[in-house]
């Protein structure tokens, strides 16, 4: 099974799981930071790996990224990416302070963003795992701030991915005042996707 062959029903099923995962992640993050944060997954799309840098405005645009390898029944990768200013806004959102307070993406900001991304990814994997009855465990997250093209390329070449497309869950974090957009990419191995869809009853 290839990602680009997914039907509308299969995409709906995966988006629904994404929303459930995002709901759990929002609860977890609200507990962590002590004030309410919501997360929506407005759309789930299939995107070409080569088109990803254009989502940010070009291959050289500076983005913050968090990557985890997937272990267990479903092999592959998850990659969280946010354009630099969005990453800083997300840090401010977590601290419940005005956007623009965080000015540079240093070690503290990177650690916080890694934590946030890792909660979001774990919640998504837990939701998928529960519905599909598969074990999906995230390996230790690793992070970077650099050119969008280089980060995506490093993830795909390290996995020597046969796939040239990824599932993109557009993710919107918000509280009463602020809303921040980020991108979560799910890159399951092709054989793992078959197993997953079969277990979800939408193969």
């Amino acid at each position, binding site marked *: 099974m290839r990602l680009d062959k997914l039907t509308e029903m299969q995409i709906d099923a995966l988006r629904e799981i994404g929303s459930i995962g995002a709901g759990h992640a929002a609860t977890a993050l609200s507990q962590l930071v002590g004030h309410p944060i919501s997360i929506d997954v407005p759309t789930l799309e299939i995107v070409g790996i080569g088109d990803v840098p254009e989502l940010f405005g070009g291959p050289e645009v500076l983005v913050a990224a968090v990557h985890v*390898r997937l272990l267990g029944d479903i092999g592959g990768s998850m990659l969280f990416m946010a354009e630099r200013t969005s990453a800083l806004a997300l840090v401010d959102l977590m601290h419940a302070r005005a956007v623009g307070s965080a000015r540079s993406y240093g070690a503290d900001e990177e650690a916080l963003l890694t934590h946030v991304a890792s909660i979001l990814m774990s919640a998504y994997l837990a939701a998928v795992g529960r519905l599909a009855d598969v074990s999906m465990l995230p390996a230790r997250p690793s992070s970077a701030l650099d050119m969008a093209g280089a980060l995506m*390329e490093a993830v795909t070449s390290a996995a020597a991915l046969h796939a040239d497309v990824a599932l993109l869950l557009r993710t919107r974090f918000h509280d009463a005042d602020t809303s921040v957009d980020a991108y979560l990419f799910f890159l399951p191995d092709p054989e793992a996707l078959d197993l997953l869809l079969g277990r979800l009853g939408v193969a």
Partner: protein
Amino acid sequence: MDTSALEMGADPLHVIVGVGEIACAHEPEVLVTQALGSCIGLTLWDPRLCIGGMAHVMLPASPAGDFTGRRHRFADLAVPELVEEMLRLGAGRHRMIAKIAGGAAMFKGDSGMDTIGKRNATAVIEQLEKCGLTVRAADTGGSHARTIELHMNSGVLLVRSYTFGMREI
């Protein structure tokens, strides 16, 4: 750093080489490949003719059997074919100056990913040696992304990154 410092103007003389592509150019063109992470940017330049070639290599070796996608993303196909293309354009095998950049470990802390950049660099150097060429200058490794430009009049390879700004090799 201000991101605009790295943004590329739509200069008609800039020949952009995409991931997994090879290309050759003449003076006054500039060969450019953007956002090398673990990939290797290889450049060849002939000082007599002022012509050059560039490859953006993603993986060390092509898989056995059929595969889809760009064949020049593999070092074992891209390197000999770029050398051939330069020779076809009249470049001298012993005049050509080879330089490489890239091969970074973009995400620190992941054991699987750490080695791919290094393996790419090794594969490109080995393939060059098979073609009778050695690397004259290199800016590889580290954990930062690079954009490179090969200037045909001088053979200078400009390496740009957020971490170090501009470097010439």
